[in-house]
């Protein structure tokens, strides 16, 4: 928007005043100038055309200047339409009230041409700048929303069914603290009898972390296309070693990914897992006892090209639950700086009923409520594997 194409509405019940203002504005180079003789006409004009500046008289029949400002304030348009109030010399109180209602500035009658010029041009310039910023913000927000949609689509849907004759369910959750985040959650089948569980957490937040997350995810998934995929994932330390070497190559920023990769042989219910700097998963056995899978530790992905990982195994039984979370759950803070902590996660797992449809959403809501209105502290991702003693309905 420039002086030549800025759209101005002059509102005054005295025709001579309107004409005088319109002529002065035309002399400044403005070409799109409309007129209205009272507040009702003004609001009707504003409703059909998007103006860049309103010159508004206060005392008018039908609807006065206060009424116009109140209407603009009510529907929020006052934030996008600058208003210069026209007042008689010496009227202080009405001008103050107009400015409180959202008017940008004022000019006094009789009009001083130099002052009129300065106020109108400054207001138009500010409007052009704020339009530009608003458009830029809107564009960035649209881009971020699209990135968020794409990222959330990387997380698979919940699964409940029978694999190799075993009834099981897998619940997943991905909840970035900002529009996009650095947490990663996935599960997939390799061959007929193997389910891979993957959970990662990039050591950062926002767009940079999201790129790292997407890269890590793509590398992991690419391994499934290799002819030796079954062997790589049956020994998950091998799959993780390949991803680590690729991420660490030339990683000057030292951004890293803590990762938990597990492969479940469904037929034997044996789970092999590797923990690359990730917090130990929570395991609840059929008797309700909670333990942690704290073995198989190694450095996070992306820091040491030659890092070697080792896996450990655990045999799961009927009714067992395995919960893998990122530290966005355990390290969430309340306003008093207390941690959500591991004990609350354990309590959630202990109290889990078999019939619940989306338990991880409930846990995430609990964390956000714990933060009680603070900005979300961190991204959250989780995966919950449940063996069911009876087939799910």
């Amino acid at each position, binding site marked *: 928007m420039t002086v030549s194409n800025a759209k101005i509405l002059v509102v005054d019940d005295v025709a001579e005043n309107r004409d005088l203002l319109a002529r002065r504005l035309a002399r400044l180079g403005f070409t799109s100038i409309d007129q209205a003789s009272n507040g009702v006409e003004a609001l009707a004009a504003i409703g059909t055309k998007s103006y860049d500046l309103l010159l508004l008289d206060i005392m008018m029949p039908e609807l006065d200047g206060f009424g116009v400002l109140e209407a603009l304030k009510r529907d929020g348009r006052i934030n996008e339409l600058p208003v210069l109030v026209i007042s008689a010399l010496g009227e202080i109180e009405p001008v103050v009230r107009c400015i409180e209602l959202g008017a940008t500035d004022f000019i006094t009658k009789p009009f001083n041409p130099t002052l009129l010029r300065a106020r109108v041009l400054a207001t138009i310039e500010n409007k052009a700048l704020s339009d530009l910023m608003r458009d830029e913000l809107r564009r960035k927000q649209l881009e971020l929303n699209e990135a968020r949609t794409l990222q959330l689509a990387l997380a698979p849907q919940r699964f409940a069914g029978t694999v190799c004759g075993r009834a099981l369910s897998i619940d997943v959750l991905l909840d970035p603290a900002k529009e996009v985040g650095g947490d990663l959650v996935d599960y997939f089948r390799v061959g007929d009898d193997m389910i891979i569980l993957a959970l990662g957490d990039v050591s950062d937040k926002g767009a940079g972390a999201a790129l790292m997350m997407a890269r890590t995810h793509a590398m992991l998934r690419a391994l499934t296309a290799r002819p030796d995929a079954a062997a790589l994932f049956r020994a998950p330390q091998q799959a993780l070693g390949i991803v680590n070497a690729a991420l660490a190559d030339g990683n000057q*920023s*030292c951004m*890293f990914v803590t990762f938990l990769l597990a492969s479940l042989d469904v037929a034997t219910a044996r789970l092999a897992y590797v923990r690359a*700097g990730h*917090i*130990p998963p929570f395991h609840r056995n059929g008797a309700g006892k909670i333990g942690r899978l704290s073995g198989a530790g190694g*450095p996070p992905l992306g820091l040491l090209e030659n890092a070697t990982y080792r896996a450990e195994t655990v045999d799961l039984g009927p009714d067992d639950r395995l919960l893998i979370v990122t530290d966005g759950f355990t390290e969430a803070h309340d306003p008093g700086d207390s941690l959500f902590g591991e004990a609350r996660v354990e309590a959630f797992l202990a109290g889990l009923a078999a019939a619940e449809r989306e338990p991880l959403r409930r846990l995430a809501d609990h964390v956000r409520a714990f933060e009680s209105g603070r900005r979300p502290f961190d991204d959250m991702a989780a995966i919950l594997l449940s063996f069911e003693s009876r087939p799910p309905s």
Partner: protein
Amino acid sequence: MQIAINDAGSTATVTMVGRLDISGAEVVALPLATLSGSKNALIIDMAAVTFVASIGLRHLVSAAKAIGRRGGRLVLLNPNAAVAEVITTAGLADLLVVERDGSAQS
């Protein structure tokens, strides 16, 4: 996060006070990068650090690797038990060397 730096000589000591979270990491990022690129040894006094998030670990690792490439050494001095556990759980105990001089309780 507040930091105090003593960089007289070839060894620098950085004393950190507060939370090494996302905003704390912003405070320490530049000093750590500068010192790890110029000093032979970097001692980070962690006794008064109450919390370390992974982004904070990232800056410590970055400094440790940078100074290590130049043959130097970075030491984390007297981190409290919770902070030390975070370092161990994150699998970073080999990269981030923890030392205790006995003057602080852990």
